[in-house]
Structures are given as C-alpha cells and as structure tokens.
C-alpha cells in the first residue's frame, strides 16, 4: 500500500494563450472504497491564483489551510496580491520545512500575474522542489496516464474554449485508466477578466 495512492486523486494544469486552466478529479476514497464524489483538490488562493493538492487527503486539507494562512499574512503586510511565482516559493518553503517528515502531496500551481496577467503554471514534489514549465504539469495517481494524454493533446496558444476541451479530455481519459481516481471532475479556466468553473459529468466507476 502506497501512501500517495491511499486516497487517490489527480490534478492537471495547462498553459494557453493569455489564460491557464487547472482541473482535478473529485473522488475521495479509502483504498478501493469510494467515500464521496465531491472532494475538490483545487483551492483558490487569490482571484487569479489556484493551487491543486493531490495526494493524501488529510494533507490536502491541512496544506490548503496553512498556505491560505501564509498568503493572507503576506497580503496584509504587502497590501497587494501575491504573484504566482512568489506563491510557488511559499509552497516550496512550506514543504521543505517538513523535509524529513513530509506532507504527502505533490502540488500544482496555476495562475495569472495580478498586474501583467502573464500566465504561469508549475508543479512541486512532496518536499518542495519546484518545476516551471510552459506547456502542462500533472500530478497524482494517474500521472503516467496524464503525461501520455497531455503529450498527445496539448498544443501551444490554445484559447480558453479549446484549452477547456483539451484539459478536460486529457484528465477524463487518464483517470478512466486509474482505479482510484475519477468519479467526476472540475475544471477552472482562468482568464484576465474571469474564471470559468465547470463540473464535468464523467464515468462514476
């Protein structure tokens, strides 16, 4: 039994033209048993900044709360919204503090710069090593499947609607090959002026 696949779950983030998208499955399970189908793994950290926290569910909740705490204090002190790149460093720092007894999550960050609206995505491992890419990042129990789907489906400079389709198909087909992920999905498409949240009807098995 692996700790990272005890609860199951996946997150993908993709880069588009002046937009980003982040999506997660919604299953909460205990090994093979599905307990609920509305457990979101993506949390809003700012009007255009989202973080996905797949992995052990208890750590998903705890890290989301602790990150929000640190972000709130930053916002109060600096009196401005945090940039996504800075947020990545905050996540990295929080995780490395627990280097020898880590949180069992591998986060994904997606957002737009508050001032310039430049899109940004990155992922980190469970002890905080950051990786910034300009195409897509994946994390979770179906990561191998998601890599395959993303490599095939992603293209640069997709508009918001095309990006939504691409990320949805990549996530849904990947989790259909994973016994501990799926049971519906949620997509966030983040543009300069709005965030579109869609819940996807998916296979419930």
């Amino acid at each position: 039994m692996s700790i990272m696949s005890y609860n199951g779950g996946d997150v993908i983030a993709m880069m588009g033209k002046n937009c980003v998208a982040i999506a997660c499955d919604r299953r909460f399970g205990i090994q093979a048993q599905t307990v609920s189908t509305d457990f979101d793994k993506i949390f809003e950290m700012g009007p255009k900044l989202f973080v996905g926290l797949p992995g052990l569910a208890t750590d998903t909740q705890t890290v989301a709360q602790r990150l929000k705490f640190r972000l709130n204090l930053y916002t109060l002190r600096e009196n401005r919204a945090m940039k996504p790149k800075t947020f990545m460093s905050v996540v990295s720092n929080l995780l490395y503090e627990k280097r020898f007894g880590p949180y069992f999550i591998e986060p994904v960050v997606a957002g737009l710069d508050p001032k310039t609206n430049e899109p940004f995505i990155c992922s980190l491992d469970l002890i905080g090593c950051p990786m910034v890419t300009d195409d897509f990042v994946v994390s979770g129990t179906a990561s191998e499947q998601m890599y395959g789907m993303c490599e095939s489906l992603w293209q640069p400079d997709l508009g918001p609607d095309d990006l939504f389709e691409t990320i949805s198909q990549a996530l849904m087909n990947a989790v259909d090959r994973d016994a501990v992920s799926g049971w519906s999905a949620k997509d966030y498409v983040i543009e300069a002026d709005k965030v579109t949240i869609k819940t996807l009807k998916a296979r419930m098995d």
Partner: protein
Amino acid sequence: MRTNNMTPEWMDSEVSTGTSIMAVEFDGGVVVGADSRTTTGSYIANRVTDKLTKVADYIYCCRSGSAADTQAVSDIVSYHLDFLQSETQEPPLVRTAAHLFKGMCYQYRDQLSAGIICAGWDKKDGGQVYSIPIGGMCVQQPFAIGGSGSTYIYGYVDSVFKTGMTQEECMKFVTNSLALAMMRDGSSGGVIRLAIITQKGVERKVIVGSDIPRFYEG
C-alpha cells in the same frame, strides 16, 4: 515494501480482477453478470475484460481474485468437462462443474486466490447457481454475489431479491446491483457484461455508458 521506487507501482503488482460478479437463478435458466475492470495495482490494465468464462456449452463461471489463478483453474475445469462430455455423450451437469471447481480451489487453497461463481443450465435440475469463495467451499444458492465490489451491495440484494422472478426481472436485478457495486468499488468498473443461459443456449449482452443505471452520486 517497495525497495525500488524508480519503477511505477503497477510494475510490481499482481494482476487482479478486483471485481463485482453475480449470478441469479430463475425458472428456466440463470443470469450471470460481471463488471469489466482488471487492475495491476491501481492501473487499469483492461477496462473491457470479459470475466464470464465458458466452461461448457451451458455452464459459465464468473471469476474474481487473481486473474492468473482463475484463468488457470477455469481452463482445467473446462478441459475436464469436455472430456466428461466425450465419455458420457451428454452435456455435463452444473453441479459437476461446481464440484470440479471446488476440488481444485480446496486442494490448492494455500496457493490460490480465486473466488468463483459457477452457474448454468442442465436438463436434470434446470438453472443453478453455485458459489465457490476463497478457501474452496461450495454451496448452491438462489443467487450469489462475489468479488471486492460485492461487499457494498449485500444490503441492496437482500432487500430487493424475491423468489419467482422472471428472466427480465433477474436481468434488471443483476444490472442494478452491479451498477451500485461499480460506483463504490475502485476495483470494479467499465461495462456490465451479462450472459443469460437457458435451454435455448447462451445470450450475451453488454451494457455500456449511459445505459448503465445511475443512482445517488453523492
């Protein structure tokens, strides 16, 4: 314990038909059903597996547990039944098939991980369902459920089952039960495969996608 973390988890995991299987007897035959998911660890190796295996013209078995073990055992039982048919010049009895399964599963109980439901139709006793769980006991039942997904539907099947159901009612019963099990069990899913075995022969059906019944989805 995984000492090597360079390879993905599924490369060191045994192939298992996690599973939800079921069989119900009615007057004139049986309905057998199964999901279609095979997993190696949490990777779904096959999402359209056929777990309903023919062992004789009118006798099928539903397989759960280790894919290798159940395939090997059902191949051997199928051979024995075929040989018996040549000797007796008659189709084999369902109880014979069930006892052959029992014999193997009991004798090799320490080495096998196989849960089997053997069901079919014969001229002598009509439709019959035999349950051969892990350990190798054999018991005839009006209906049987098995596999990891069956644990989620014991209450449902006990509350819905009634004697004297028609073929259509049995098919609905199996379909609804398996749909509920597939929803809750991570090791079960895919499509619902049915086989209806009567004097007329075997009718195979597959229920896919939006035809699979949906219930409360939390």
